């Protein structure tokens, strides 16, 4: 992936804006760009969502598959998250196996969903130790204008809430699928992610690509509906102070509450 060189003048201008309490698109520090979320967009996927945050756009698809559980968790289903920064989305993305940015995006999204207990994975066990549902969550990034993390988690949450799986029964130790009967994926919790960029000494939420390119550091905080922190990931080449981190956590509580309103009311 190429290295994008940002002219010093843009860096300075964006920093000065923030120092004056402003942003280039007139948002306040705690404002998201326009959010668009639609579910059920791919008929062949058992769950799907199209999410836009500003000009950033991600397609998320969920596909269940019957497989073997991990040997150390024999009665628990599996959630697998994969992400592709396809070259469609940005002149800087290149074809090929997922690079480190793509891997980080998938793993942070995965941890956020899993640690929050979004899906009741125990209900996905069909035959203990032998057959469980595996849910493949695929993030297809098609337009990249910054803040992939929050869009990925929002889209994943919505796609999982949209997902219906076939009823699997066990008859004589064999799994029997009823393709007619579909039941919603058992959703136990809701969690979203809130990302701040540090620019001009301040933390601003939902950085655009332009802001990401000049930011000193980044912090992404995953939070459940009950306000507990389920995931966190610092990024960027500069440090954060403890105070900045704790303030980001505090602000995340408020912001996530509003963000949750974009999710569908219930799943089915």
């Amino acid at each position: 992936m190429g290295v994008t060189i940002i002219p010093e003048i843009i860096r300075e201008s964006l920093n000065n804006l923030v120092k004056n309490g402003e942003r280039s698109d007139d948002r306040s520090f705690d404002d998201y760009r326009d959010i668009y979320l639609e579910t059920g967009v791919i008929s062949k996927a058992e769950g799907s969502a199209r999410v836009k945050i500003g000009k950033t756009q991600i397609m998320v698809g969920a596909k269940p598959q019957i497989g073997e559980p991990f040997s150390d968790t024999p009665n628990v289903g599996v959630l697998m998250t994969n992400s592709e920064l396809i070259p469609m989305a940005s002149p800087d993305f290149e074809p090929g196996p997922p690079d480190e940015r793509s891997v980080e995006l998938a793993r942070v999204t995965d941890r956020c969903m899993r640690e929050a207990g979004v899906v009741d994975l125990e209900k996905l066990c069909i035959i203990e130790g032998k057959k469980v549902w595996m849910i493949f969550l695929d993030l297809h990034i098609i337009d990249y204008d910054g803040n992939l993390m929050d869009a990925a988690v929002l889209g994943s949450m919505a796609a999982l809430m949209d997902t219906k799986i076939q009823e699997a029964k066990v008859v004589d130790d064999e799994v029997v699928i009823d393709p007619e009967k579909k039941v919603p994926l058992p959703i136990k919790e809701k969690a979203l992610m809130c990302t701040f960029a540090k620019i001009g000494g301040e933390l601003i939420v939902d950085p655009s690509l332009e802001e990401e390119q000049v930011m000193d550091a980044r912090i992404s905080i995953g939070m459940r509906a009950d306000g507990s922190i389920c995931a966190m990931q610092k990024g960027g080449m500069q440090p954060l102070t403890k105070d900045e981190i704790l303030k980001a956590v505090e602000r995340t509580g408020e912001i996530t509450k509003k963000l949750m309103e974009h999710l569908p009311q219930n799943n089915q």
Partner: protein
Amino acid sequence: MITIITNKILGKDSTSSKRADGRASDELRPFKIEAGVLERADGSAYLELGGNKVMVAVYGPRELHIRRLMQPDRAVLRCRYNMAPFSVDDRKRPGPDRRSVEISKITSEALMPAVFLEKFPRSTIDVFIEVLEAEGGTRCAGITAASVALADAGVPMRDLVVACAAGKSEGEVVLDLSEAEDKDGEADVPVAIMPRTGEVTLLQSDGNLTPEEFEKTLNLAIEGCMKLSEAQKEAIIKRYGD
């Protein structure tokens, strides 16, 4: 900014035998084409055709970094046809397989004749075709959308390449096979043309056809191309005004 063209009025003059989905033998599935649907790409287009959903981004003409691919007297046109993992019934593993490698190659050859490549020596024009949902006929859908995306990117072209398949299903020559028809059908013939001259830029045939059946199928596919061609032009006009 986003334009939607549908074909509700198309196929109305066909009264021949009905197919599983109720279409006449020379009837296309419902479709829509939109231009300019992505922000970062230099040009883009979105196409739905039956259950197919295809997104195309175009980048370029831009600098080509891989020296051994560089052409001293023209641009290289690179296509990447890719299926999203969730686009098919059984999840597709990410990354290119043999099928997508072949389709990428012939898509590139289908588009090349229409593009003034000689205007951009030593550079590349990259066409990224993402199949978001597949229901039979994605290679043609990708080519048709790619032309609109190339136009949206302002790439100078002789013509708007357009593609459509015809084939043989239950003994009859029919237009635009659905996934079900393709699976049980006897033959599938994807065709791309440059509509101004009618010249063929993509042609494959998969299945068994007598030479007579083949000619009929080819003619029908070209008819389908002509219908889609209108929708391509309208999509571009709606995007840029006339």
